[in-house]
């Protein structure tokens, strides 16, 4: 009814204004300008359509509709004239206007899906003509609250899998489009931000100087993409297959994500504010023993291990008494708190006849759920376009942002360090209270845990992990400026020359300081404070010059051509300074000159240049048969001297079957049907500069009396002038179909990708007798094949109520086809650990490799007449883990290790539903991963019984010949040898209610009371519900970050959060 009333009101307003306009037109003949206004609405629902383009035919006049579908021209044009109206997802329309005044223009939904423009590399293409696999992230996804937009891609587009490395605000994520192509590096897609090519290289936000004497390194990368304000993003398009990505040549193999930021609209001035506030809690914590339980475990260890009895007699007495007294330190709980996010965004956008602008400022702050962790970002953007003449257009866009991330230390890549990491808290001594009665940190030496000392003092210095977390500074500051200017000259109506120049500056500053009273700042009493700073300056500039030509031969043949030449220059320079032992903690990392020991300095640089030729030819016959030929020739400096240049071609064909005459009788049911077929080869050249060169590394030795460090130099790697990019050859077949008045839309694709020339740096490629432990070579191949579909349906379309659904499904199967001379290799494991994953021909990357177990050894297994095979090299007794002798040779050796499952999901899926009822809207988004395994390394560590750490409550059910003969975890042994075994390889399948949002749009009347055009309020919850069998903290886990070979390993990273947000959007 509301809607109807409004309709009447507009209609009457329209009549009134006609009179006014007519009289003004008649009375003031010397004034040329008149107002033309109206509203664009959906034909069926009569809902206003925001962002539709209204063009006055034969002129340059063009406006966009506002959030209420309204548009207005102030123009010298007079009726009669013709509007051309276009809107994404609707049929375009031409309408002749014969009178002034308000006009409601209805657009038909659906079939415009074929005429709208789709973003492709270096341009747009009519959707009906597209041959490649291109997907657009749904608009409503972009409005979800997040610190970094890459998180939004999770579940939003079929075939895109996003894995956050941790819940740390600003943390990195790995993004895989149709599976990983490379074993070594660079599996993340290429980002193109307003035309600027940006590869999100984690090494640009982290410094790990290669020196054994560096006191500290921050060790964990920050996410370069988090510098981009998600609220600035207008659209995200994902190019998936070779036909779509070949225009990016040697960098197209992993898919391309094209990001377009918000532009102004002609002839309008808008101010909009959006703000949100959210609260977060940890999703889940793991149960560990409390003080008295741990005291009992200690007693068992003590009884079982004669070698510690004399050493720990005094400890035992004290531990027992503390246990009995109920002393308990809950370290995990002490570290956690309620997190909070707030986001404020102010955007001013609009334009006049010839120019459009958009100016925005944003403040985002997230207080982490762990003490002393947070993320703050300030960002601003200015986009401006001006048509200087009918031929010449200049556009520029610039954004700058500054973000500060405070994070935990200690989850350093490739080493499992305990200090200050979140997982270390699970291992902390439960018999030490976190705080004293007066709320100060308890740093009194507590009973532990070191038999070499036979003392109740395990440490000579204060040791309180919570104090360490609260007082250690580990900060990453990113300053990111990206500017882009382009000039476009229309030589003829069919020929356009465009030149773009852009520059990208990313400056990283890493600050670290562990005060003298912390574990890392004390190092066993050897130092007083440890600090470091690092900077990385990254400069990239890009120049692209293209010529585009399009021509229609009659109404049948349509030709589009594009050629271009581009050059990109990327340089990063870093410095690193560190020192230890300061006379005061007061200056933290700001005065490293005062360090008295272990002063370290370092610097480095890396330069890459790329020159490319690119071209694309699209031909369409009646928009029914479409052919796209694409190619790019890339010359890249990091490639070996003999292989600098490569050529990457692709071909795509699509057929709009529904346009055929034979199809017409079906057109009532099947509104459109399109088949696509593409093939091509694309590259992955994301390897570091100087990879092909032999470079010298420092190898020191001590000589002389007194011994003095002497620097030696020797080549650390073999040169390889034949080193080149990995090539992925991809075939894609797809179908797009619309049914039942376009209420059901299905896009399905099936693809096969084979990556050859795998860039492998590793052992086993050259003989060890060469003296080089590893080499970099293009060797081996792997494949990814899969299917994916997206089903969008409009289940209910009523006047007041609508219900739309989107179901996305993607399955990818990955397999290593060859590894050159070797059949398998193990990625380097952290020191003291055995690699749980193998890379093996015939198996997918991320295959877990270890022993199967069959419960625990029984007395009969050990002493019976028919004993079970036992693990060699270890003495195994009753109650120990029983490993399965796969080879049947009577003993359990490393040969009995076998495939224990894979970290890559069999398929991923998401299901989103959007309901609207009058002004209310509700969206519910489920997302899940199915059939993947996780190596629960934290649980393995938490079941390792030693006197030096706390353990999981699963050990309450430990085997004991008398007390618990049916116990499920093994007999207590001090410091057991840990094997990679199936008990810690768990099913990682999950279904997660990722987002649920309830919003309300106030009516115009209400909005008008505060002079606003539009007001929307919403509440939203993230990660509200997770259904999984996984016993660890969170099934969305990836300890090893961008490392391709070790996915699905859980070492208790910063936990994922459950979060609740309220927000408001107002446009004035």
């Amino acid at each position, binding site marked *: 009814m509301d809607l109807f009333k409004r309709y009447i009101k507009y209609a009457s307003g329209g009549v009134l204004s006609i009179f006014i306009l007519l009289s003004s037109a008649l009375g003031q003949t010397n004034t040329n300008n008149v107002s033309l206004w109206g509203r664009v609405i959906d034909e069926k629902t009569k809902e206003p359509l925001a962002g539709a383009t209204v063009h006055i035919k034969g002129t340059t006049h063009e406006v966009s509709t506002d959030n209420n579908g309204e548009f207005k021209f102030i123009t010298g044009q007079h009726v009669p004239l013709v509007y051309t109206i276009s809107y994404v997802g609707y049929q375009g329309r031409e309408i002749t206007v014969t009178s002034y005044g308000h006009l409601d223009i209805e657009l038909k939904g659906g079939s415009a899906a074929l005429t709208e423009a789709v973003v492709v590399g270096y341009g747009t293409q009519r959707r009906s003509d597209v041959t490649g696999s291109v997907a657009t992230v749904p608009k409503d996804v972009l409005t979800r609250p997040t610190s970094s937009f890459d998180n939004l891609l999770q579940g939003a587009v079929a075939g895109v899998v996003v894995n956050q490395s941790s819940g740390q605000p600003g943390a990195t994520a790995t993004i895989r489009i149709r599976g990983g192509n490379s074993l070594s590096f660079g599996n993340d897609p290429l980002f193109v931000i307003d035309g600027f090519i940006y590869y999100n290289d984690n090494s640009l936000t982290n410094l790990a100087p290669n*020196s*054994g*004497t560096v*006191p500290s390194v921050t060790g964990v990368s920050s996410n370069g993409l988090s510098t981009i304000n998600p609220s600035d993003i207008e659209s995200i398009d994902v190019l998936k297959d070779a036909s779509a990505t070949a225009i990016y040549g040697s960098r197209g193999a992993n898919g391309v994500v094209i990001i377009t930021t918000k532009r102004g609209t002609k002839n309008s001035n808008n101010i909009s504010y959006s703000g949100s506030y959210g609260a977060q809690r940890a999703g889940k914590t793991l149960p560990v023993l409390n003080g008295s339980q741990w005291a009992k475990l200690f007693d068992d260890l003590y009884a079982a291990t004669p*070698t*510690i009895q004399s*050493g720990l007699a005094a400890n035992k007495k004290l531990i027992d008494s503390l246990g009995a007294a109920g002393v308990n330190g809950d370290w995990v709980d002490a570290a956690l708190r309620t997190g909070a996010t707030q986001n404020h965004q102010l955007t001013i956008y609009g334009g006049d006849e010839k120019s459009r602008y958009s100016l925005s400022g944003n403040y985002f702050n997230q207080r982490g759920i762990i003490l002393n962790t947070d993320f703050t970002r300030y960002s601003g953007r200015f986009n401006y376009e001006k048509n200087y003449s009918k031929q010449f257009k200049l556009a520029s866009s610039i954004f700058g942002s500054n973000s500060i991330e405070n994070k935990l230390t200690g989850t350093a890549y490739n080493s499992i360090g305990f200090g200050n990491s979140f997982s270390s808290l699970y291992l902390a001594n439960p018999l030490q209270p976190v705080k004293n009665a007066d709320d100060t940190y308890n740093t009194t030496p507590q009973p532990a845990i*070191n038999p*070499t000392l*036979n003392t109740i*003092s395990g440490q000579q210095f204060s040791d309180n992990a919570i104090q360490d977390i609260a007082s250690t500074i580990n900060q990453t500051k990113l300053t990111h400026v990206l500017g882009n200017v382009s000039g476009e000259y229309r*030589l003829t109506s069919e020929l356009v020359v465009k*030149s773009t*120049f852009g520059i990208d500056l990313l400056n990283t500053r890493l600050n670290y300081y562990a005060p003298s009273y912390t574990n890392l700042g004390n190092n*066993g*009493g050897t130092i007083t404070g440890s600090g470091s700073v690092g900077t990385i300056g990254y400069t990239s500039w890009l*120049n692209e*010059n293209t010529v585009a030509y399009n021509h229609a031969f009659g109404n049948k043949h349509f030709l589009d051509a594009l050629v271009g030449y581009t*050059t990109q*220059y990327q340089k990063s320079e870093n410095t690193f300074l560190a020192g230890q032992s300061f006379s005061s903690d007061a200056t933290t990392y700001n005065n490293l000159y005062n360090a008295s020991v*272990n002063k370290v300095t370092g610097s*480095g640089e890396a330069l890459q*240049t*790329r*020159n490319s030729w690119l071209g694309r030819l699209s031909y369409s016959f009646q928009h029914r048969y479409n052919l796209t030929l694409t190619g790019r020739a890339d010359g*890249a*400096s990091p490639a070996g001297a003999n292989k600098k240049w490569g050529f990457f071609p692709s071909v795509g064909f699509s057929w709009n079957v529904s346009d055929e005459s034979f199809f017409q009788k079906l057109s009532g049911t099947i509104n459109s049907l399109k088949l696509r077929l593409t093939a091509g080869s694309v590259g992955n050249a994301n390897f570091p*500069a*100087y990879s*092909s*060169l*032999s*470079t010298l590394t420092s*190898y*020191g*030795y001590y000589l002389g*009396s007194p*011994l003095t460090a002497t620097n*030696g*130099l020797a080549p*650390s790697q*073999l040169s*390889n002038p034949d080193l080149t990019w990995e090539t992925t050859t991809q075939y894609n077949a797809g179908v797009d179909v619309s049914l039942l008045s376009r209420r059901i839309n299905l896009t399905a694709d099936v693809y096969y990708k084979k990556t050859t020339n795998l860039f492998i740096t590793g052992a086993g490629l*050259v*003989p060890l*007798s*060469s*003296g080089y432990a590893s*080499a970099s070579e293009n060797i081996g191949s792997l494949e990814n094949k899969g299917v994916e579909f997206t089903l969008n349906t409009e289940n209910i379309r009523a006047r007041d109520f609508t219900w739309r659904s989107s179901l996305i499904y993607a399955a990818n199967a990955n397999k290593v086809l060859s590894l050159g*001379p*070797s*059949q398998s290799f193990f990625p380097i494991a952290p*020191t003291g650990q055995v690699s749980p994953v193998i890379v093996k021909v015939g198996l997918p990357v991320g295959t877990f490799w270890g022993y199967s177990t069959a419960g625990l050894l029984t007395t009969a297994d050990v002493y019976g007449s028919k004993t079970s095979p036992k693990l*060699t*090299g270890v003495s195994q007794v009753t109650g120990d883990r029983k490993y399965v002798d796969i080879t049947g040779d009577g003993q359990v*050796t*490393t040969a009995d290790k076998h495939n224990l499952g894979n970290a890559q999901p069999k398929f991923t899926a998401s299901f989103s539903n959007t309901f609207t009822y009058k002004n209310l809207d509700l969206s519910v988004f489920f997302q899940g991963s199915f059939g993947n395994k996780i190596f629960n390394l934290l649980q393995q560590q938490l079941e390792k019984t030693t006197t030096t750490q706390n353990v999981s409550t699963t050990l309450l059910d430990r085997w004991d010949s008398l007390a618990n003969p049916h116990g499920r975890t093994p007999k207590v042994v*001090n*410091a057991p*040898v840990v094997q990679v075994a199936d008990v810690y390889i768990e099913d990682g399948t999950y279904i997660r209610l990722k987002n649920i949002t309830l919003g309300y749009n106030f009516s115009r009347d209400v909005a008008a009371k505060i002079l606003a055009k539009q007001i929307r309020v919403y509440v939203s919850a993230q990660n509200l519900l997770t259904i999984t069998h996984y016993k660890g903290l969170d099934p969305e886990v990836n300890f090893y970050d961008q490392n391709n070979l070790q996915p699905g390993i859980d070492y208790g990273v910063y936990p994922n959060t459950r979060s609740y947000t309220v927000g408001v959007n107002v446009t004035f």
Partner: protein
Amino acid sequence: MKKIGLILLLGASFSCKKLTEKPQGNLTPDNFYQTQSDAVAAVTAVYSTLTTDINNDFPIYGRNLNLIVDNPSDNQVYSPSNTNPDVRALGTATYVSTNDRVHKIYAQLYWGINRANIAIDKIPTIPAAQFVDPSHSADNLVREARFIRALLYFDLVRLFGPVPLVVHDQATVAAAGELVSRAPKDSVYAQIITDLDSATLLPASYTGANIGRVTSGAAHALLAKVHVTRHDWGNAVTELRKVITAGTAGLIDATTGSYGYDLFTKFSDAFQAATKNGKEHIFSAQFNGTTGGFTSTNTLSSFTWSNSAYTADIPADSSVVHLFDIADQRRDATFYDSLFNQTTGKWVKWPFFNFLKFVDQSTGFVTALQGNQGANSKVNFPVIRYAEILLLYAEALNELNGSPTADAYTAINIVRARAYKSYTSGGSYTDHTYDLSPGLSISDFRDAVFTERRKEFIQESQRWFDLVRRTDLGPGQYYLQSVLAMPGNPKAAATLKDTLFPIPQTEIDLYGGRNPNFQQNPGWN
């Protein structure tokens, strides 16, 4: 149209960047090896391989060779701190060709050999005029590198038998990919001897900043050991006489050594930071206890003091300790079973013995055990020390003459006298209580020498080599009988195949069927 021109001009001016890489922050073989200091640095990198691992794992002489040579011997099995199953397998004779320690040592030895090959190839290409500092002539730098190459090949050929003989750097992946066949042991030894012969032209000693470099004495000493290993007793004796200090009391046959080598009176001085590079040390891997990783930190015996329940390594059982008389000073210098706790003022007795030799006591015994210092031992690893020269001399004379000569007795008795605390210097001591009884047969004397070697060199990466090189009972029998005689029979799985280590499986896999000459050692397939 002017604007277009401007834009294109702007574009073109930035385009066409060169694709050739010229790193500004990295040295490459193209811009290095041009000066004398470059040559010195190239040789320092060769030394570095003795005490450094590329992946910060245990270096050759920091612990890895010890794991390979001592754990499979009758002195050790494995220690509670050996959580790596592959390390444990070495101790129980159950290791296989994929054992990561075996792989590691093979890789490390060739890594060092390659560094030496580079220095030996590149230094002669540097113009002679560059060598202005006479203390580092091009010739001597090459000789130092040749000594290290010989030392590492000597370890290789003893551990693995015939091995690929690579004497030049291959530089590119394509060249390195060539599959070099295993050279017969004799060819490897011929190369070792040539290299060592060249190193005998090095200076006899150094001062100041160059102490610790290879000397001619070290070259002769290692040459002698090579000859003994090959049962070339005559040449061994010739070389040994050049090393043994002339005028050593009690030695009748002319010895000519002018190096001034002698034994420390105090046995433990051979393993202390304060007495490093002393008169007993002929060549040592230099450690300085650097923090962070294993680089230049001797991690033998002293690896995990601070936060783990166990010290690094322990002997196989108490019978190893009980080999020693209570009066033998080597016992207390090699093992300990109790510690003094400064905080409580009490002695703590351990339930078993631990190795002490490489524990760095320079910062004070208790401190070393209480802080993190345990992980930072500054104790040098004595690759070859004078006591071994005396014992090799005793052994070689016995074998050469078919029975122990007077000099053979004198040599071994000097070592024993020092053990029993009566030794002063120059071969002199007064208390002859512990001298070997005279008139031993060749085999009894041989037994005496090997027992003495065992006691003298516990944890010095000698015992397994000794067990397998002795062939008087038949090839490998001495090894087999010794390890099978251990209490509790921890090495029950030992067989004759264990007298050579398997070529790492990755190497066999790499060669595949492509080089039929490249076969695994017998019994390891």
